[in-house]
């Protein structure tokens, strides 16, 4: 069994309630931080832990916290990003539903470290039943002196509020989230200024993912140095992976970042193998925005090494032969799945979710969707494949926020690795509407380039 730091107590009956959480050591990290450490000492532990943001970009959390501006007399805010809308990702939901006090304890320690007295949890509107769970937990924490004024007699004050969104993926982007929290459309802001300087109501603001903030609790419990011994290299600690698609056991798993992708997919501890006895065709391991890989490149890097569930190993080979850990939304496709159709659903998603501020994103996402729909319906031309490539190239890097890139990458990777499947759709339109291209050669052993002779 892999070691757990977030879900170690998840099996305990009633752990979502205050009394049970507290009886099992809950709020111990907060007690330690608030009563025996200065904010700078806590920050130091977070830095030592090597924790990287779990929302998708993997930016070091300690470093991000050290950037927050501290002008005299201006409030600072912590915003917990619970927008969780990246297709394939459903881990934060699990944390909030089943371990709400773990998140609240994490928010308390983080707010203390940053010097924030108000914290907002911005949760996607569709998770409509979760605010009740969080608000009940917040009320219980407050009753027991962990929130409100003069927390545990330390003189530190904190209020946590839950704010619902209303259906917009873009509000997961931190500046769009801030706009939304201010009661506006979710249009991302141009950076700089960064939220750490000018964020919510123009005050210094830190936006962190739910899992990131919950992870601060075990870091304080075992210490930053000990935390950094979990995992591999710069991928320290554990990561929540939400696994879905054609596997036997979809669900949310906590992994230590030292297992292979193969173990994650096939072992009974995790996904339990491909459903219905089928074979693996492809996988999008970090949420819909990251590049899709065919089975052979997923399990082994282009150098022939086993691919590991770490930030570095998944990215090995760059976009040519690698992908990204992203948000940990692990989407598995079996041999019967159609890459064109899958890509089409993502293109439709990004088109639907574009805020419309930048023309390459607004127009390009719709154009890609229409071209993909034609190819999928057997009405595509060979030149459409090059056209798709061209459109995605023109979106990437030419927009205000990374949603444009997120829309471009899945299309680029699908064409890069599955071009013959696209061509087959164009060449056999009749057949393509009746059956799928199948596994083809996508799981064949890779030819490993021989090291160049010296």
């Amino acid at each position, binding site marked *: 069994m892999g070691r757990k730091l977030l879900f170690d107590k998840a099996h305990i009956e009633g752990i979502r309630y205050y009394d049970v959480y507290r009886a099992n050591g809950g709020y111990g990290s907060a007690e330690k931080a608030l009563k025996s450490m200065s904010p700078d000492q806590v920050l130091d532990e977070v830095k030592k832990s090597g924790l990287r943001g779990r929302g998708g970009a993997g930016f070091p959390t300690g470093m991000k916290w050290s950037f927050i501006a501290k002008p005299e007399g201006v409030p600072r805010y912590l915003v917990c990003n619970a927008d969780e809308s*990246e297709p394939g990702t459903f881990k934060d939901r699990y944390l909030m539903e089943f371990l709400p006090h773990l998140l609240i304890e994490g928010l308390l320690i983080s707010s203390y470290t940053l010097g924030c007295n108000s914290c907002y949890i911005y949760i996607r*509107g569709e998770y409509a039943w979760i605010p009740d769970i969080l608000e009940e937990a917040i009320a219980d924490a407050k009753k027991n002196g962990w929130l409100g004024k003069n927390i545990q007699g330390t003189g530190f004050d904190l209020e946590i509020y839950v704010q619902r969104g209303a259906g917009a993926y873009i509000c997961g982007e931190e500046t769009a989230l801030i706009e*939304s929290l201010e*009661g506006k459309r979710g249009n991302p802001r141009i950076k700089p200024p960064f939220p750490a300087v000018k964020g919510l109501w123009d005050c210094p603001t830190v936006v962190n993912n739910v899992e990131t903030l919950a992870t601060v609790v075990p870091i304080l419990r075992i210490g930053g140095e000990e935390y950094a011994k979990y995992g591999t290299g710069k991928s320290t600690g554990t990561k929540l992976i*939400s696994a*879905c698609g054609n596997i036997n056991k979809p669900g949310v798993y906590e992994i230590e970042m030292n297992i292979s992708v193969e173990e994650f997919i096939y072992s009974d501890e995790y996904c339990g193998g491909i459903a219905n006895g089928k074979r693996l065709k492809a996988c999008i391991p970090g949420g819909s925005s990251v590049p899709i890989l065919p089975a052979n490149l997923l399990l082994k890097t282009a150098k022939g090494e086993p691919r590991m569930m770490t930030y570095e190993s998944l990215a090995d080979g760059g976009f040519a032969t690698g992908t990204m850990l992203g948000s940990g939304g692990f989407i598995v496709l079996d041999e019967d799945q159609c890459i064109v159709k899958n890509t089409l659903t993502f293109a439709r998603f990004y088109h639907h979710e574009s805020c419309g501020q930048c023309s390459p994103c607004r127009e390009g996402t719709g154009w890609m969707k229409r071209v993909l729909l034609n190819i999928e319906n057997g009405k595509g031309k060979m030149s459409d494949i090059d056209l798709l490539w061209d459109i995605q190239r023109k979106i990437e890097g030419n927009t205000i926020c990374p949603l444009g890139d997120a829309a471009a990458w899945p299309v680029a990777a699908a064409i890069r690795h599955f071009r013959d499947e696209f061509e087959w759709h164009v060449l056999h339109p009749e057949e393509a509407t009746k059956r799928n291209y199948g596994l083809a050669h996508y799981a064949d052993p890779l030819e490993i380039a021989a090291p160049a002779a010296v």
Partner: protein
Amino acid sequence: MFSEEKLNKVKEIIARYPAGKQKSALIPVLHLAQEVSGGWLSSETMDYVASLLQITPIEVYEVATFYSMFNLQPVGQYVFEVCQTGPCMLRGSDNIIDYIKKKLDIGVGQTTKDGLFTLKTVECLGACGYAPMMQLGKHYREHLTPEKVDAIIEECRSKAN
């Protein structure tokens, strides 16, 4: 339009923000307004929300039109919002959508003649591991099969009577 109780709720929401930042309450208050107005926002409802928060009506329209959870047209009493994004598609959401269309004899975006059901397709709702799925009111219905859809339709019909 709001009851005393709802008006108190609005006050409570506004108190979450610093003085003068009551516009931040807009999305939460629009959710409340939609709940008490049959699941959609008319321009009268939006104007009312503007007056409550002391902002201009255009500020409310801007927001209401941006977020997909706000309905600007009347909807049925029960709205089936079926997810159709990749992970759900891989687990057969297309079949579920087709099944509902046939069963209720409506297309996507339409409402049954008795005003009971509306069918919508939506993008990823964060339930990809429990696919296929849909949102029905405040909750999710997951691991959908035709039999489960039948049972849900029956459940709604019996609640409506």
